[in-house]
Structures are given as structure tokens and as C-alpha cells.
């Protein structure tokens, strides 16, 4: 049913409908409203789960690791410094092949301290071996939680997922969201039934020591499972579409690409503003399109290459990154360049919106103008007077 609610509350409700058995999280802005709502659900009997209060994020994810290894569906949520504190546990959770789902209300990383949005936090964990989904709006931010559990818990995958949505910009925004019912979600998401679990009567170990004779193979299998998740995402997305009408089977989305001469590539909530800017530019005769990346890990290299190839008029590509791999480029630009290796279409990177800097339609138009002139690989919107 379509209802108007805050992004965080919609996400908390979606998580409740996924029936997690263990929730452990530590509150941090702008994720706080999600875990407050889940704590309320547990306290008021609306969610039959163990809510484990912990002293910090390292413990929160560690509690999820233990609970998941014991065979429970587990959930956590964090952002920014909280995610940074989980760094070690993130690698362990993925290496142990535990399908934890964690919401990331994306926020900048310090120093300097910033509570505002960019994607540096989850992007910095791109090598941790988790799936990473990025939402454009609150509908997607909720729906991707159902998809994430389905894909993560698939026996071919068995890996944890981040469901990322822009902190404040989505988490604190009221807008209409079509919420599923418990009956709906139960039809889509079967109970968690892992092939291996901690059991005192039939002991097994998770995440044990791997000598040089074995470690390389562990990493190979981990990488393969993450790459194989592409097919599982397609299948899980198609089944979701068949039941509820919204299709998340593709890892990328094309918007007005067919005749686009300038192709913008971006992720997350900025894509809504980009689409509005594209519509306006097209009335002015500028042929601009968008390739939105919904899944960043596994990275949809083949889809990116296919969509850009399909945009036969493409003369230039402008990749927008709300993150930067300092000393190199934005993470999306690096991936896109890799996916398009051998292509002669120039790829320009624009670092923007860091630490909550607002991005407007006029900014998107300026970026398109810069790309048209062959000016790129730059921070966009710098206030020169403070440099």
C-alpha cells in the first residue's frame, strides 16, 4: 500500500517484514531512526527478534557474525565512522560467507568530521567481499532489502550485503513508498536455512586459519561467489517483479541513452536530479542520457560495456562520483574505465557532492557543458575563495 513516510522508517518496516531473528546495531547519525524504530518493534512485540545492545559498531557486527553463523537471519545498520570501526569484522563476515544484511545511510568520513552525505564510507569497503546495492529513492531503499536477503542467502552466493542509500537525502525524507505486507514478503523470502551452522551437537568451525596452501583458493571461491551473484540478482529481481511489479533484475538502469551524445554515469539519489536535468536539457536540444549503477559489487562491467555500446551516438561519458580514491579517481570512474577498456569514447570524472555539498540541476548542466568541452577529471563546484 502506498503510504508517505520517512525513508528510515520505511527501511525499518521493510527490515521487520524480512523477519530478522537477530538485530544488533549502534546508533549513529544519520542511521539512528532506523535502529530506533527496530528497537521499538522488538520492545512492542511487532518483531520477534533478539535485539542485542552493544557498546560500539565493532561489537554490533561481531554479534551479527556469531548469530548468523549459528543459523539466524541477522541485520545491522550503520554509516561513516561506524562502518570504519567495523572494517575488520566486515572482511570476516564475508570471508565466513555469512549472509548478513546491513543498511548503510551513506555519510562522509572524517577527518574533518562531517555528518553529511557522500558515499566514501561504503565505497571504501568495496574490497571487503560484500554485495553493494545503491538506491535512487526510498521505494528502492526499502525494496532492495528484500532483494538483498534473497540474494545473500542464496546457496550459490552466501555473502553479506550492504543496502546503501544517501544519508539525510533519503533517510530523512518523507515521500510516498509502496510498502509490502507480511504475506507478500513471506511469499518472496523463505526462512533462512544455511547449509552449515554452529551446532554444539555437530561441531563445525567458521573462519579458521588458512595456510598458504589454502588461502588463495578461499579468496578465489569468495570472488567467484560474488561474481556469480550477478545471475542470482537477475533471477531474484525477476521474481520480485513478477510478484510486485517493480523490476530490480538489472544491475544498471539506462535513461534516454539510445541517442545520447553525452552519457552521465552515477549512483544513488543524485540520479533523480540528473534525470530532471536531462529532461530539461533535451528540451534545449542537448542529447544527454544517464547510466545508473544500482549494484556496485559485484560490479556490472559487462552491463556497463553493453549499455555504452548500445548508446551508439555517445561522444563522451561523464562519471559522477560522490567519493574519491584519493591519489587516483572516483571509484565509479575507475570501474567504468576498466569496463570500457579499448573504447575510444572519452571518460571524464567529476568528484562532487562530498560532505553534503548540495547538487542541483544547474550543476549537472554545467558538468555536461564541461564534458562537451573535453574538460574533466576534476573536483566540481570547488569554492576557489577558500582554497
Amino acid at each position, binding site marked *: 500500500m502506498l503510504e*508517505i513516510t*520517512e525513508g528510515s522508517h520505511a527501511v525499518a518496516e521493510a527490515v521487520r517484514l524480512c523477519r530478522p531473528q537477530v538485530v544488533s546495531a549502534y546508533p549513529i547519525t*544519520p542511521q539512528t531512526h532506523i535502529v530506533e524504530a527496530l528497537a521499538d518493534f522488538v520492545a512492542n512485540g511487532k518483531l520477534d527478534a533478539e535485539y542485542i545492545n552493544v557498546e560500539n559498531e565493532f561489537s554490533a557486527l561481531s554479534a551479527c557474525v556469531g548469530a548468523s553463523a549459528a543459523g539466524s537471519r541477522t541485520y545491522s545498520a550503520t554509516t561513516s565512522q561506524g562502518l570504519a570501526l567495523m572494517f575488520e569484522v566486515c572482511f570476516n563476515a564475508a570471508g565466513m560467507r555469512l549472509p548478513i544484511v546491513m543498511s548503510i545511510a551513506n555519510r562522509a568520513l572524517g577527518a574533518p568530521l562531517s*555528518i*553529511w*552525505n557522500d558515499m566514501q564510507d561504503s565505497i571504501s569497503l568495496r574490497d571487503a567481499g560484500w554485495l553493494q546495492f545503491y538506491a535512487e*529513492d526510498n521505494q528502492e531503499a526499502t525494496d532492495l532489502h528484500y532483494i538483498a536477503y534473497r540474494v545473500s542467502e542464496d546457496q550459490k552466493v552466501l555473502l553479506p550485503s550492504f543496502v546503501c542509500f*544517501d544519508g*539525510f*537525502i533519503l533517510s*530523512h*525524507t*518523507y*515521500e*510516498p513508498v509502496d510498502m509490502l505486507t507480511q504475506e507478500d514478503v513471506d511469499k518472496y523470502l523463505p526462512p533462512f536455512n544455511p547449509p552449515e551452522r554452529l551446532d554444539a551437537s555437530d561441531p563445525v568451525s567458521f573462519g579458521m586459519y588458512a595456510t598458504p596452501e589454502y588461502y588463495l583458493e578461499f579468496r578465489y571461491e569468495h570472488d567467484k561467489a560474488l561474481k556469480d551473484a550477478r545471475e542470482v540478482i537477475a533471477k531474484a529481481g525477476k521474481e520480485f517483479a513478477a510478484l510486485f511489479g517493480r523490476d530490480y533484475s538489472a544491475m544498471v538502469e539506462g535513461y534516454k541513452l539510445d541517442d545520447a551524445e553525452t552519457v552521465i554515469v552515477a549512483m544513488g*539519489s*543524485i540520479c*533523480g*536530479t540528473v*534525470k*530532471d536535468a536531462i529532461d530539461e536539457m533535451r528540451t534545449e536540444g542537448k542529447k544527454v542520457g544517464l547510466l545508473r549503477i544500482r549494484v556496485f559489487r559485484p560490479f556490472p562491467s559487462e552491463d556497463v560495456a553493453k549499455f555504452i555500446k548500445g548508446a551508439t551516438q555517445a561522444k563522451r561519458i561523464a562519471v559522477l562520483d560522490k567519493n574519491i580514491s584519493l591519489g587516483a579517481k572516483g571509484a565509479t570512474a575507475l570501474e567504468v574505465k576498466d569496463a570500457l577498456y579499448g573504447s575510444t569514447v572519452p571518460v571524464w570524472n567529476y568528484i562532487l557532492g562530498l560532505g*553534503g555539498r*548540495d*547538487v*542541483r*540541476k544547474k550543476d549537472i548542466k554545467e558538468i555536461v557543458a564541461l564534458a562537451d568541452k573535453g574538460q574533466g577529471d576534476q573536483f566540481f563546484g570547488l569554492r576557489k575563495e577558500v582554497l
Partner: protein
Amino acid sequence: MRELRIHGRGGQGSVTAAELIAVAAFEGGVFAQAFPAFGVERRGAPVQAFVRFDNIKIRKRSQVYEPDYIIVQDSTLIKDVNVFLGVKPGGIVIVNTEKKPDFKIPEGVKLITIDATSIALKALGLPITNTTLMGAFAAATGEIQFAALENALKHRFKGELATRNIAAAKTAFDVVKGAA
């Protein structure tokens, strides 16, 4: 698409007002989007909140720079913040003040002043003017129906508090309707 920008001070309920206006607009069949200007909100500091209204899905996520409507909860903000910046010609500005306006608004913009503080003090016993100004907004713009506003307030506040806030909103609604 129509856009509203609310200026207030931390503690005056600007963010709540934006949310409840969006809830009421949604009840009226409109796609609404409400969000705050994310800051480190402390009591008394200038804050902003935004609402967008459209008949189709709203995709834009930037802040509101060219509003159709502006609500100013505290007229002392006018000397510190350019609260009228970017208002569209034909727009409506609602200012809470008990005085005759001693400030200038852009040309072609309709100004409505209302003593929301006195109304709120009488109805709530507190100088929290957000719900009062929501009533004024409903009357001035027609973006939300009063019945929908009443439902939104009932949903957010319990019992006596809901009744008092509805009374404050209704008084302001009638004052603005009467003046129109």
C-alpha cells in the same frame, strides 16, 4: 511542481511542519516530498525545511532555491537570513509577526502576516508556532485541505495535544481565510 521553504529556529518545529504538510498533501492525492536542510540543529539556530508538491513522482533531491511558498516562523530571522531569496513571482510568503511589516519582500509576491505566536500561546500555552502556521499555509495556498491537516495532526499528536494543535491551526486558517 510547487515548492515550499520553511524558515525557523531550532525547536520551533519547522521539520515537523514540513513532514505534516507533506502527509496532508499526500492524503489529497498529491505526490509530496519533505526534508530538512540537514544541519547540526540546536535550539535557536536558524533552520530550514522543504516540501515539494507535484502530480507526478518527484525525482529532484536538491534543496529548494526558488520556492513558490515561504513560511517564516520567526520574523527576527529576517535581519540575519535572506529568507525571501529566490521566491518566484506570484509566490506567497507567510510571516509570523505581531507587528506591521518593517521589511521588504520581492515584487509580485503576496505577503501574509499573522500573529502565530499569540495564537499558539493561547491554544498550546507554548510559543511553538509550527502547527498554527500550517493552518495559515492551508488557507493561503490551498495546497492542503484543512481536514487532511487535521488528520495529519491527529496521527502525530495524542489526545489533548492533538486537539490543541488542531485548534491553533484552525484559528490561523480562519484568520487567513477571513483576510482573503
